[in-house]
């Protein structure tokens, strides 16, 4: 008999309940309430920064439209900004609802393989869409932000500060991409890598079946 088989016998005769605190109705309700709050809090934390940023953008663009409604160019740029951001806001709102309801709907009783496959697919699908949005939204946002800042706040506007405007645009763009890259790494690439390692391990086992 191997050492592990001997240990299996010991394992099976482990005391099961003496040190384990059982759940009653009150502690179950408390646990459920605590977890619901925790999941909602996590989802809010996740989307708070994005939603706050968008709210700021809408407020700024709204203010600019009202304050400079006679300037056709400023109005056009601000309206373009609104149009660019509205689909993204709708998408984020839907996603936030999905995350909250997904975490609250209950654990999966699928096999481990199916569970990991679905988790990977879902996260990968969302990440691909987010990357697309990042690429589409970030450069025009930086252009609009830089344009409005120089035209409205800096004496001489863009014409009088062409090199400074270009430098400001490049710095803003680099800062945005650095921040997005950091966020993507922590929230998507690392979890996806973890899931992929598991997927690969399972696929390797399944490939030996044939």
């Amino acid at each position, binding site marked *: 008999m*191997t*050492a*592990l088989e001997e*240990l*299996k016998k*010991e*394992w*099976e005769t*482990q005391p*099961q*309940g003496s040190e*384990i605190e*059982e*759940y*009653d*109705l009150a502690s*179950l*309700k408390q*646990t*459920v309430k*605590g*977890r619901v709050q925790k999941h909602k809090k996590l989802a809010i934390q996740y989307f708070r920064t994005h939603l706050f940023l968008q709210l700021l953008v809408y407020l700024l663009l709204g203010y600019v439209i009202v304050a400079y409604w006679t300037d056709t160019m400023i109005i056009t740029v601000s309206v373009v900004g609104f149009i660019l951001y509205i689909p993204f806001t709708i998408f984020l709102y839907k996603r936030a609802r999905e995350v909250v309801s997904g975490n*609250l*709907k*209950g*654990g*999966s*009783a*699928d*096999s*481990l*393989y*199916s*569970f*990991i496959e679905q*988790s990977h697919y879902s996260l990968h699908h969302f990440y691909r869409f987010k990357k697309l949005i990042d690429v589409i939204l970030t450069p025009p946002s930086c252009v609009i932000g830089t344009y409005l800042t120089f035209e409205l706040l800096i004496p001489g506007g863009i014409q009088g500060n062409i090199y400074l405007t270009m430098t400001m645009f490049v710095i803003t763009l680099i800062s945005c991409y650095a921040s997005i890259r950091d966020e993507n790494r922590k929230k998507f690439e*690392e979890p996806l890598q*973890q899931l992929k*390692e*598991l997927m690969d*391990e*399972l696929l390797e*086992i*399944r490939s*030996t*079946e044939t």
Partner: protein
Amino acid sequence: MSDSKEEVFLKNLNQNLGIAHKICRVYFDDDEVRKDALQEMVYQLWRSFDSFEGKSKFSTWMYRVCINTAIKQRKTVSNKKKMEVLSQDHVQVSAQIPDQSSVNREEKINALYNAILTLSSLNKAIVLLYLEGMTYEEIASITGITKSNVSVRLVRIKRELETKLKNDKNF
């Protein structure tokens, strides 16, 4: 929440609560993380209790939900670092194997838990289900791999665990 549903759930949960504790212990080496994971497992079990149709045993269904929850909760990066340190410790103490008679049962089980902690997520699930006395068929159904692959995999895991245990000072 109807009373009867809660009562049935609580009765089954308390009878099988050891499953969740063991899964937490093999997947997480930090007490706080373990407590949090246990609460999450109880919550996920409760939320999905309606989907439990009684086709399998409650314990089998509970293993599925709890293992999936543990994998979702797992913080691989930090755990990996700790596991690497743990694995190195096991190797370093190989020259200090104490007298077998001084090793008690609890220490042996703890050594086994520590050795399992160093395995990959999938291997943890397979060996835990094996230690819990599940058949190869049940393990295959929970993990989603075939019965023959469970058997092959278990041979490798046993070998790996036995090597780690031989190098453990408490074993």
